[in-house]
């Protein structure tokens, strides 16, 4: 039986793409948007916009109230503990930069900043650069031969000099879940702050932050069917209190004269300038939409698709799958064809997949490859999308091998 998605019709772009003969299998890069989000953006702009946290007028109050409610909604979705805050940023990248700059004063020469070998550049470069600025040492947790994080090695690398551990929930290249729980416990036992990059993971498994216990958790709205230009930084209040503000401007201060200022605590102290109001309100609509989806059915659908994708690739000769993907995506190479050639011919046939180093150049170097192709899934994908991809792949290989 053909596996179809009961949610496909909720995403108007899917029908429009199909009309253009295009298949979208690049949701790990950014996801298509559900109708309720489009309606919410239209509603907000049509009903009258106002800036938040500033005006005394009724419209300003109304917008501010709606805006602040989204924080609570996000906190609820993340199952965040009460002693925490939700800060809005422009994306995951900005959230991690905020942390790296906010913690800078706490980092001394010789301190250790720990990441894993599979981090996206967004969760590598801010820490690499912080280490260079402060004379600290970047420590990279290695992977084992199958691409899983080597927990034994991690145990000896997280130690008394560890100040931060920044790690992904789900790899954007290998598609494997990281063993967060033991890593968080170990790092926190050493007094380190733990940052979890949920950019990929949250779409397929929203976290339970009460249980997870990390200090910070970050993600982008656009990958989880929300609008662009919005990221979320969750922080435990005690951890947020350690951060210094990093961007300065409107509404992030309690008081200033020409020469000195006092800044607000989180969240507002870290949201200088006008935030992306429409995106925040739109994200609330996306969350409401996601809430009414049967979680078990959603996960089961994606798992079936993922398994079919993996099996289909394994059946083809010459294909090498990277790591042991568990969810959401599969990256692969071909033994005799350059990934760029394969990608180009697949693209010629109207199938959108990702190719290149996936913003993880050191991981590519570690795997000894010059790039890879990645197929990634959203809840709107179906078996027909996979069939189109396999057909395109076979045709491309016929030309190239």
């Amino acid at each position, binding site marked *: 039986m053909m596996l179809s998605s009961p949610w496909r019709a909720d995403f108007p772009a899917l029908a429009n793409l199909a009309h253009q003969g295009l298949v979208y299998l690049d949701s790990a890069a950014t996801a298509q948007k559900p109708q309720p989000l489009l309606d919410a953006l239209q509603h907000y702009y049509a009903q009258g916009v106002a800036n938040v946290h500033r005006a005394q007028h009724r419209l300003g109050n109304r917008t501010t109230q709606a805006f602040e409610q989204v924080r609570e909604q996000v906190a609820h979705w993340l199952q965040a503990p009460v002693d925490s805050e939700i800060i809005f940023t422009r994306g995951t990248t900005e959230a991690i930069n905020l942390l790296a700059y906010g913690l800078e004063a706490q980092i001394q020469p010789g301190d250790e900043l720990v990441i894993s070998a599979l981090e996206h550049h967004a969760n590598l470069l801010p820490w690499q650069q912080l280490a260079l600025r402060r004379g600290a040492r970047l420590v990279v947790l290695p992977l084992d031969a199958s691409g899983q994080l080597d927990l034994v090695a991690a145990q000896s690398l997280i130690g008394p000099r560890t100040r931060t551990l920044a790690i992904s929930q789900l790899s954007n290249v290998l598609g494997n879940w990281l063993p967060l729980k033991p890593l968080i416990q170990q790092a926190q036992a050493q007094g380190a702050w733990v940052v979890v990059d949920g950019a990929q993971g949250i779409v397929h498994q929203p976290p339970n932050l009460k249980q997870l216990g990390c200090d910070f958790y970050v993600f982008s709205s656009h990958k989880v069917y929300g609008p662009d230009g919005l990221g979320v930084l969750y922080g435990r209040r005690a951890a947020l209190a350690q951060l210094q503000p990093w961007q300065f401007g409107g509404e992030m201060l309690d008081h200033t004269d020409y020469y000195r200022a006092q800044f607000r605590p989180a969240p507002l102290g870290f949201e200088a300038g006008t935030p992306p109001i429409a995106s925040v309100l739109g994200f609330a609509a996306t969350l409401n939409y996601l809430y009414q989806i049967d979680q078990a059915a959603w996960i089961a659908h994606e798992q079936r698709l993922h398994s079919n994708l993996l099996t289909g690739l394994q059946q083809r000769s010459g294909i090498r799958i990277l790591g042991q993907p568990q969810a959401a995506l599969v990256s692969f190479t071909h033994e005799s064809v*350059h990934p*760029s*050639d394969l*990608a*180009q*011919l697949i*693209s*010629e*046939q109207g199938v959108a997949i990702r*190719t*290149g*180093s996936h913003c993880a150049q050191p991981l590519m170097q570690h795997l000894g490859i*010059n*790039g890879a192709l990645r197929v990634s899934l959203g809840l709107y994908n179906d078996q027909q999308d996979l069939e189109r991809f396999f057909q395109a792949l076979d*045709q491309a290989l016929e*030309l*190239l091998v």
Partner: protein
Amino acid sequence: MTSVSLPAQAQQALSEFQQYKSWEQRSRLLLRWAEHLEPFPSEAQCETNRVLGCETKVWLTAHQCKGVWHFQASSEARLLRGLLALLLVRINGISATELAQLDVQDWFQQLGLAHQISSSRNNGLNAVIQRIQKLMQAPV
């Protein structure tokens, strides 16, 4: 605008590409053109000659002799080697003045391959064209 003369091999490329409409035939043709690319010395595949700005490795060398530029290029990807071949047959052997006036975008447009330039930074053709323009502006 292409008022400049079309080298013989470029003329041949043009008539071949204008013959075929399906992506499959055109891709086969591009792969065949990849074989026409002048052999690129392996010692020239070094960092100095590497064209930055594309994820796929591309190398380019340039020599000028009596007012005529001669370029050599290669890549680890076959389709890109095909595109490079099509670029080089258009620009090698013409005078520096003609080259400075040439609209490369228009050349690929005529071949029906314009999307290969604009499509993505992965494919690297755009970076090669920019590098060539830079080389020509640099004092010799």
